């Protein structure tokens, strides 16, 4: 049976579709329907299948990612959520780590907890650090609390007890008591959502899960029903923040793992391209309608992180957000997209974003009632975008409205004509994106200059060359399918399942029986998941031990063979740890015992179906030249204009515009553009800016 799969990425502004068939890859971009995101999905699925003449029943798989969870947290529009915790600890979420993320800035703002104090409740119970019961769970108190939660019309509950990651018994018992008393209420247990030591990060992750759970669960129900009604019987997978896939059921239980899934899809897409092109180190730049994302990719693998900070409050500063301990692809996201709105503040400074017009009303030029100028309005004014570029998306563009909005919102307060206002707006948003890239690179200690920028998303090709100049980079690659990169990335994801078990096992008391038993359980769980996600695929298992010196903060992850061990293997594990440690820090420590902290297992389906080449292309009559803003002279000048399909290996000198489905590539003066292997477009800085 041939594989026919659909990748669907719901962003804040657009919903992107990638349909992969043995014959090639088709794309589609529709405005997101924020109040009921499944509407755009169902419309788009029908449309793309109709265009490809494929019956819904023939589809073999659907991979979906959504910003729903992220948006609920950033906008703080979630469920009425309560925290039920150990008595004496109701303020864990508010107190955080009690530190300051900036030593010198006395104006810093810390994030408000997602759950306000009046919905944070303490219950008498107490476990010790080793899981022993110091104070039994007070079930009477839980019964009384259930009445309060009902009176407060609580929809979702985060159950978070101290040391529950060691002993989940009290959380489980509290669930058993509360659930029957509170029909319809959803529960998130800290021992399931994030079973690791450290109450602030665990409670914060669990609270966020509970906060978004009702919304995500009902959305996924509606989506599943809607797809079934269209005749799509293929399994639906959710794309996760770590670049892997999961079942809808897991997504309903742990919606927190969907946070940042769209951007993660883009990173997977860029990483695949970097591997295909043999690029050692790149900067992925993904600009959509609402935000821009920046990710460093070395050796074809995006950087990963075991935790993530949601909704940074203070100028995107590290430390100013809410911690979520979920595995993620390490990237930064800033509020700078095509829909980002411009305004002039009291000090007459031009500010762009993070407020976004989204798709409703959208930029002023959408003629849907928006009056503030957005980045897209500026691009229209500057000639970088044309009204025809939006054909097929269902949006009718009125460039006059863009001019009006630029005039009123930026031009008048700064005494600029609309063209200069548009140029200033573009400059500010490009500087913001370059600044975020510099900050991320600084945090990682990376030099951006030698890295090519892989630019995608609807706005990637429009702005990448200017950003490259600001960063000192000389090459920009705009790949095939750039307009919907994340949706293609979804189709490139592997069915992967990662899980781990905390243990505290000194190597001096290594218990091979327990070790083998735990791994057998984990292998059964992971294997079953991967088999369901990728039936018949060859599976690869990787065991990793988390080892450390007792008392040290650092845990080393050491890969070991996928096989049972005996008690006699302990000295070998010790020697393995010592050599890893010495490789990192020149010398191993003597006299300090080594312990196993956790066992982890990653099972992946071998090889995903290769993504076919993008086959659909833009084909419309195009005048040979268009008027384009020129930064050097500040005037509109004639620029070459061609369809992407017509660009060959011979360099095209900027200023020029290359039009493609879902995106435009802006080649400013000083750059040239040509098609390279795989049909991707390479922009090179030639330095001749005239």
């Amino acid at each position, binding site marked *: 049976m041939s594989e026919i799969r659909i990748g669907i990425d719901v962003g804040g502004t657009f919903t992107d579709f990638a349909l992969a068939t043995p014959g090639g890859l088709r794309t589609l971009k529709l405005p997101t329907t924020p109040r009921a995101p499944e509407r755009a999905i169902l419309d788009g699925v029908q449309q793309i299948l109709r265009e490809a003449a494929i019956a819904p029943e023939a589809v073999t798989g659907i991979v979906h990612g959504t910003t729903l969870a992220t948006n609920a947290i950033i906008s703080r529009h979630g469920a009425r959520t309560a925290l039920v915790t150990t*008595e*004496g*600890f*109701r*303020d*864990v979420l*508010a*107190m*955080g*780590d*009690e*530190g*300051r993320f*900036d*030593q*010198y*800035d*006395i*104006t*810093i*703002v*810390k994030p408000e907890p997602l759950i*306000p*104090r*009046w919905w944070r409740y303490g219950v008498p119970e*107490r476990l*010790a*650090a*080793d899981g022993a019961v*110091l104070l039994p769970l007070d079930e009477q108190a839980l019964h009384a609390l259930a009445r309060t939660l009902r009176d407060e019309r609580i929809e979702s509950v985060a159950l978070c007890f*101290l*040391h529950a*990651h060691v002993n989940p018994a009290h959380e489980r018992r509290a669930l058993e008591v509360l659930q029957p008393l509170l029909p319809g209420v959803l529960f998130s247990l800290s021992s399931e959502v994030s079973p690791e*030591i*450290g*109450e*602030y990060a665990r409670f914060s992750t669990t609270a966020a899960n509970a906060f978004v759970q009702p919304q995500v669960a009902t959305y996924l129900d509606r989506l599943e029903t809607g797809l079934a009604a269209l005749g799509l019987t293929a399994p639906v997978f959710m794309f996760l923040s770590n670049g892997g896939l999961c079942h809808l059921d897991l997504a309903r239980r742990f919606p927190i793992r969907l946070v940042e899934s769209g951007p993660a899809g883009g990173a997977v897409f860029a990483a695949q391209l970097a591997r295909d092109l043999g690029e050692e180190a790149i900067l992925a730049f993904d600009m959509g309608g609402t935000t821009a994302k920046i990710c460093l990719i070395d050796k074809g693998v995006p950087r990963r992180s075991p935790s993530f900070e949601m909704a940074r409050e203070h100028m995107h500063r590290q430390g100013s957000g809410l911690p979520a301990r979920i595995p993620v692809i390490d990237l930064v996201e800033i509020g700078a997209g095509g829909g980002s709105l411009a305004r002039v503040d009291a000090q007459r400074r031009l500010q762009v974003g993070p407020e976004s017009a989204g798709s409703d009303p959208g930029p002023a030029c959408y003629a849907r009632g928006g009056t503030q100028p957005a980045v897209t309005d500026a691009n229209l004014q500057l000639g970088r975008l044309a009204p025809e570029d939006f054909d097929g998306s269902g949006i009718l563009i009125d460039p006059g409205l863009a001019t009006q909005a630029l005039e009123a919102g930026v031009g008048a307060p700064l005494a600029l004509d609309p063209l200069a206002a548009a140029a200033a707006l573009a400059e500010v948003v490009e500087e913001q994106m370059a600044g975020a890239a*510099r900050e991320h690179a*600084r*945090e*990682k*200690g*990376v*030099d*951006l*200059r030698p890295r090519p920028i892989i630019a995608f998303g609807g706005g990637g090709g429009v702005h990448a060359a200017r950003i490259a100049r600001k*960063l*000192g980079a000389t090459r920009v690659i705009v790949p095939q399918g750039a307009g919907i990169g994340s949706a293609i990335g979804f189709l490139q994801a592997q069915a992967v399942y990662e899980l781990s078990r905390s243990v505290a096992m000194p190597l001096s008391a290594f218990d091979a029986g327990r070790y083998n038993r735990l791994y057998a359980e984990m292998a059964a769980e992971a294997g079953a998941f991967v088999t369901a996600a990728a039936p018949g695929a060859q599976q690869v298992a990787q065991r990793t031990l988390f080892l450390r*010196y007792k*008392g*040290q*903060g*650092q845990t080393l992850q050491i890969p070991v063979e996928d096989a049972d061990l005996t008690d006699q293997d302990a000295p070998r594990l010790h020697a393995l740890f010592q050599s890893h440690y010495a490789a*990192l*820090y*020149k*010398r191993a*420590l003597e*006299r*300090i015992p080594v312990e196993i902290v956790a066992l982890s297992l990653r099972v992946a389906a071998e090889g995903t179906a290769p993504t076919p080449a993008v086959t659909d292309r833009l084909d419309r009559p195009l005048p040979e030249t268009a008027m384009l803003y020129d930064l050097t002279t500040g005037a509109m000048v004639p620029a070459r204009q061609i369809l992407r399909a017509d660009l060959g290996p011979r360099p095209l000198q900027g200023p020029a515009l290359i039009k493609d489905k879902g995106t435009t590539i802006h080649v400013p003066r000083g750059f040239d553009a040509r098609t390279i292997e795989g049909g991707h477009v390479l922009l090179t800085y030639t330095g001749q800016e005239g």
Partner: protein
Amino acid sequence: MNPAQDEIRFQVIWSNLIAIVEEQARTLMRTAFSPVVRDSGDLSAALFDRAGNMLAQAQTGTPGHVNSTVAAVPQMLAVHPAETLEEGDHLITNDPWIASGHVHDITVTSPVFKDGQVIGFFACTCHQLDIGGRGQGPDGASVFEEGLAIPVMKLMRKGVVNDDLMAMIRANVRTPDEVEADILSYVAANEASAQVLVEAVAQLGLTDLEAVGAEILARSRAAMIAEIRKLPKTSASNTITLDAFGTPITITCTLTIGEDEVLLDFAGTSPSHPKGINLVYNYTNAYASFGARCIIGASVPNNSGSLSTVRVVAPVGSILNVTRPNPVSARHIIGQFLPEAVLGCLAQILPDKVPAEGSAGLWGIQLRGGPEVARHFPGDWQGPAWETLFFNAGGGGARPMADGLSTTAFPSGVRAMPVEVVESHAPIVLWKKELRPGSAGDGTFRGGYGQSIELATRDGSPVALFAMFDRTTVQAQGRQGGTAGAMGALGLASGQPLQPKGVQIVGPGERLRFEVPGGAGFGDPALRDPQARARDRHSGLEPG
């Protein structure tokens, strides 16, 4: 290359150096064994040029560490000059008068070699809970009682540990394996950073850091001077009173804005104290200059260039500039109030830029248990010896445009350890750790809330409390009509009070209670947003 490209290149190098010291700090936290370093970040990490000027520092730890390391490195190099060092050498000291003011802070300085030449130094200062002696507290009558002294010497020679020194250290401390491993972790962090620096310098096509370093220092100094010149040339004085130990002490600060410097003169401050709450000059300089830096040119990176524009003077013999062998172990109790003294001066010059007073001193709860403590009581207590220290922050002062931050450390930059981590390190149980309602001072913007803590040993065994708490008799004061924050308090659940300073042994079965102080308010309370007031009431943080 054109000037714009040169500028980009310089920016990249500077950013790189800052990223490298941040990584140095993270490596310290990963490799350290002491929980105050690994979980709370009680450390400093910084890069120095060949001459011992600080070029970059990590944004972690306490100003007391960071800014005193600036003074320590040149003094360590005076003993072992750069040209006498060989690859693999590492210098160590915990001399309070050279490094950061008490023997519990160990500084390790490591040369960075590129092509056989020293191009700079990485230095780190970390808190060491166990350095022998009495244990940290103000009870010693001289520095000799406060623990092992390590003069400036080589911890390692050509990559080989100085075994004589290590044997001496091991013989003097209660937990030799952990202390040894900890000290080696400082070396590991410096070495890892050195390797990254050498690679980065080579990749950028540089031979050394001299030109770049000079540019960093010059630009930072110039940026500070530009900030100073925006201020009126004037002078202001401020006196604050602290509980101290028995009788209150006063800190008097006179701040003068000069042409290209800010002068902080502490003439008029109380004389040295018989107990260990005295400061060495380095430490006074460190905390006082931090107070000025967080208002004047706060966004200018901290290095020897920016710090060179703040000059601190403290009379010899005052509590802020003691000589050997005065006791200094608990010097941070006073040190953490120096920024408050400085801010009180700046508030007179820049009334709309300076926050109200906050709780200032971290409430670090330091406990010891086991046979050494239990032998004072009848009963058969089985547990082994243990010692722990964990930090708890009070409320910050209200800002001119915003409420104060609740339970947030200032001026210290350390973080609290998770309760789950505290309890897995020591056999204690925290029965409560919550915001303290009613502890914030009122105002147009209120202060931050302090916290309430209740704890006991897990098995009810006796425990020694090393108390080092302030703001128990003098509240944080408001500004422009804002009211004071609540005082701190401590005692046993059974009713018996505890002293805010000094070692006290608590008998079996008791629970200890701590009320950590709140921050003061800013502006007229009548002008407070009624919605903000209603929210605090609805939250149960204010009565009604």
